[in-house]
């Protein structure tokens, strides 16, 4: 019984092959680039110029279309990094460690965007750029966690050991994710509740809600694109002596 749970299907092991990931990732890249461009452009133009102003916040609410995707992605990417790290630790997949490493910079970027746009939104809404509110503080802790994961990953020269150490720190760091998510319920905060959830009907009209859905989906596509690009770069760096890469059309040009 235990053995059947841990025995994974063939496609799962295929994903752990650098050769397979390099080829398959390369074929996915243009589609994710196109999807990210179309969804982000569509969502942002709609949100900026066509969505109606909020009856309380006026036009400053339009910051939501960049702030909310960045905030959602900052947490999802951290979770994704921890899952990839766990897969690397359990099934000893080098590619999984590479994926985890590829998540660090883009995840930290989304966290910085969430904090900065949140601060900018805070000024017209709360009258202050920063308050030591539970949601803001736990998101700042997330940025420090990303910085810690990045520093740890770069401090160890041996890739495999760096991958393991990063995975462990990422897994431990996920404790902060439910704290961020439920901070607005557990403590009295200035920060509003979730703009939308997967389970409940949105409280906003469709004209306000749909552009947000587009920018969230577009940001996910952009994240996948960057992870594919960075993971394939690491495969190039570590597999340069292998026969499959020496014969690949990216190298030979034919």
């Amino acid at each position: 019984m235990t053995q059947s749970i841990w025995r994974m299907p063939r496609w799962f092991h295929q994903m752990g092959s650098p050769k397979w990931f390099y080829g398959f990732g390369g074929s996915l890249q243009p589609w994710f680039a196109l999807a990210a461009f179309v969804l982000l452009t569509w969502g942002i133009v709609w949100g900026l110029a066509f969505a109606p102003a909020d009856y309380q916040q006026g036009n400053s609410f339009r910051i939501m279309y960049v702030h909310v995707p960045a905030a959602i992605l900052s947490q999802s990417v951290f979770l994704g990094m921890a899952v990839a790290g766990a897969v690397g630790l359990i099934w000893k997949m080098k590619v999984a460690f590479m994926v985890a490493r590829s998540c660090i910079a883009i995840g930290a970027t989304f966290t910085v965007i969430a904090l900065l746009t949140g601060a900018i939104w805070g000024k017209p809404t709360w009258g202050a750029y920063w308050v030591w509110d539970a949601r803001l503080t736990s998101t700042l802790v997330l940025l420090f966690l990303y910085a810690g994961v990045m520093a740890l990953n770069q401090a160890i020269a041996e890739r495999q050991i760096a991958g393991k150490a990063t995975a462990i720190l990422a897994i431990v760091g996920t404790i902060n994710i439910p704290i961020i998510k439920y901070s607005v319920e557990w403590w009295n905060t200035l920060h509003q509740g979730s703009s939308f959830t997967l389970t409940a009907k949105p409280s906003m009209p469709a004209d306000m809600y749909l552009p947000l859905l587009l920018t969230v989906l577009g940001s996910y596509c952009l994240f996948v694109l960057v992870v594919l690009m960075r993971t394939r770069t690491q495969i190039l760096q570590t597999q340069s002596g292998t026969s499959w890469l020496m014969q690949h059309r990216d190298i030979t040009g034919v």
Partner: protein
Amino acid sequence: MYFESLGALWDMAGHGPYVWSSYGLFFALLCLNVWHARSQKLKALKQAKAFVRRNQ
């Protein structure tokens, strides 16, 4: 369009500086990320090609 003119879109009833700077940050930081990932990829590709040339 929700706004009556491009000027109104730019001004956003006084909220323009907050809204446009947020969008500027979003695009600048994400473009920087994609650009960095791409430049690293091109660098690695160049090194891999050089490795193959050396070992031919």
